């Protein structure tokens, strides 16, 4: 009998489950970064599958900028309760309140996440951090390994990465170092949405078309809310929008869209002409090499 063949999503799923099981078996204290964003939701879905019928053998962590969309936080808490997960929150707001960090002049808090993240890793002695990063997202990520070493300062050295061969992942590290693990390395944005569709995964409502009060800044639609408001000549309007990524309210832009279902979004993503980050992340547009710089410093 000739053996069967997996389709694209089947192969990506199997690879991701293999990676999650490998890292979980080889490392002592893993943690999974969970923000409620679609990549982390898909990663959690795969991790739950990897250990079924057992429980998830490690906690999840959210690095909360303090500027999150309330509906995403509600979604996060609902998922945590549903799967009886252990949730840790590393809070940027705490750092700002006690002066360990100061607000940036541009109001963007994404770059401020690195310090609380690294401190939380050290405090809990986590040696493996599962992240939802994909190599198709951005140039600097294209060379990232599936299992990627970070030094004791959380830094990534792109010039000195271990070669990664076959499906043999080398997660060995010295005390104080840790590895980042990216089970979705080989997924594209379209694959993620196709998988969300196939698996019937539910996501925060933000991803789907809704009406919202927004204003335009630097070519992006930002939500009018407690953390971002129109200045000067910027004018608020009510539009039908959705988000392609969810993050910090002050710098994550919405796109005008009528896509109200996963099926609509699949069509939109398949035909869209702007990259996810280009459309919606102000902080990545600061410089050509913005992401690379932040990754080197230990950002996810």
């Amino acid at each position, binding site marked *: 009998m000739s053996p069967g063949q997996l389709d694209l999503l089947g192969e990506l799923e199997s690879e991701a*489950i293999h990676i999650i099981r490998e890292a979980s078996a080889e490392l002592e204290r893993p943690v999974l970064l969970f923000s409620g964003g679609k990549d982390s939701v898909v990663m959690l879905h795969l991790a739950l599958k990897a250990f079924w*019928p*057992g429980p998830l053998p490690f906690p999840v962590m959210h690095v909360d900028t303090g500027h999150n969309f309330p509906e995403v936080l509600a979604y996060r808490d609902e998922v945590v309760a549903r799967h009886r997960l252990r949730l840790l929150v590393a809070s940027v707001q705490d750092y700002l309140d006690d002066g360990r960090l100061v607000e940036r002049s541009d109001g963007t808090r994404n770059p401020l996440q690195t310090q609380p993240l690294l401190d939380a890793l050290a405090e809990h002695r986590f040696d493996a951090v599962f992240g939802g990063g994909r190599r198709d997202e951005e140039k600097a990520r294209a*060379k990232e390994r599936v299992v990627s070493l970070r030094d004791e300062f959380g830094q990534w050295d792109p*010039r000195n990465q271990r070669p990664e061969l*076959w499906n043999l992942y*080398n997660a*060995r590290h010295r005390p104080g170092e840790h590895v980042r693990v990216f089970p979705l390395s080989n997924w594209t944005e379209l694959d993620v949405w196709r998988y969300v569709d196939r698996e019937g995964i539910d996501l925060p409502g933000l991803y789907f078309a809704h009406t919202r009060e927004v204003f335009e800044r630097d070519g992006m639609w930002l939500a009018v809310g407690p953390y971002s408001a129109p200045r000067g000549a910027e004018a608020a309007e009510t539009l039908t929008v959705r988000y392609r990524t969810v993050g910090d309210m002050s710098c994550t832009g919405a796109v005008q869209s009528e896509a109200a279902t996963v099926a609509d979004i699949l069509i939109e993503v398949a035909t869209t002409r*702007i990259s996810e980050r*280009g459309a919606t992340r102000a902080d990545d547009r600061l410089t050509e090499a913005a992401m690379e710089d932040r990754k080197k410093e230990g950002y996810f």
Partner: protein
Amino acid sequence: MSTLLRMATAGSVDDGKSTLVGRLLHDTKSVLADQMQAVERVSKEKGLGVVDLALLTDGLRAEREQGITIDVAYRYFASANRTFILADCPGHVQYTRNTVTGASTADALVLLVDARKGVLEQTRRHLAVAALLRVPHVIVAVNKMDLVGYDADIFARVAQAVTAVASELGLGHAVAIPVSALEGDNVVTRTSRAPWYDGPSLLELLEGLPAAQDAAAYAFRLPVQLTIRPQDASRDPAFRDYRGYAGQIASGVVRRGEQVVVLPLGLATTVVGIDTADGELDEAFAPMSVTLRLADEFDIARGDMIAAVESAPVPTQDLDGMVAWLHERPARVGQRVLVKHTTRSVPATIRDIAGRLDLDKMAPQATETLALNDIGRVSLRLASPVMADNYLASRRTGSFLLIDPQSGATLAAGMVRGHQAFSDEMTIIPGQFWAWEI
């Protein structure tokens, strides 16, 4: 059904690899408007008259500054029925390491040759690496055809030289295609400028390649990743006594009710269940991730292997392997290493370095050590057994890493050539590395 093809690209510096990859991305509409605008802007800043598609693919800042690619980068593009994962492997002589890395997972290698230069030393090296790593399909893109006036004879000569080297190395099917990465001829769309060529474009060829079936066709093997025992779970009493062995099937097919053997224990038992989070299966095949339930309660742990009863691998503590040395610090006899084979890591000693392959002369050579980028043959003595297959038979269960136990660095990529348990049963293609006695 959309399928996945993993491929790698290689070529010497300036043969046009970045341009070709940029062209593949661009012409399959995988480049989004803002990425394209960035490339257009940089092209203009550099004072280039045309948009340099090579800029789409060079990632890191250091490389941008030096204008060269120095590490494997992964790209994604898709056609109507296939998605491609492309390992883009930089082409300096000193980066054989990158080609080895990219080739290890590739079902197809696209090798660039400059039509004006023909087969270079570097081309031979890359073909040798493809043969060593057993990449199933090798495609040679004879590039810059626009600079030789799309001349049929020039193409024929280069194609012939490539085929000669390929067969010398035991590479079955190396196909040559005349292309111009710069102009886009025969990359995604066929060109009318080489009417003498009636073959497919590069993308058409890649779309039509049979998916690698050898993993699923070989005997069943499942390296155990972990044991799943949710016994403490007050969650669902149905699973209180559950005990399953989770892993990704490395090769072959397994069916419920089938006899299997657990290694290195060497005990036979029956598969009573093949579980996934989506439900039970009657059969499963490589490369599926599953959880097996067995009839007997043996003491099975990570690193053990569940295999077909017939032709099960014989556990061994002696490995004879080809290795690609990947680290600046050279290999030496007596060196202590960790062997990572499937899900098992065991301490080992390099007992002997039988020799290295001179990739330029394509001949074996005596040596005391192996330096960065050397390919050689070593024998290893392991502290406990591994369940290895010959790499010629199975890439998954025939490959291993050598790791420095102190620093954790990856030292070498290894391919099992044999061990005392299977001396002559493999048929070795004459001329292939694997047959070379050193």
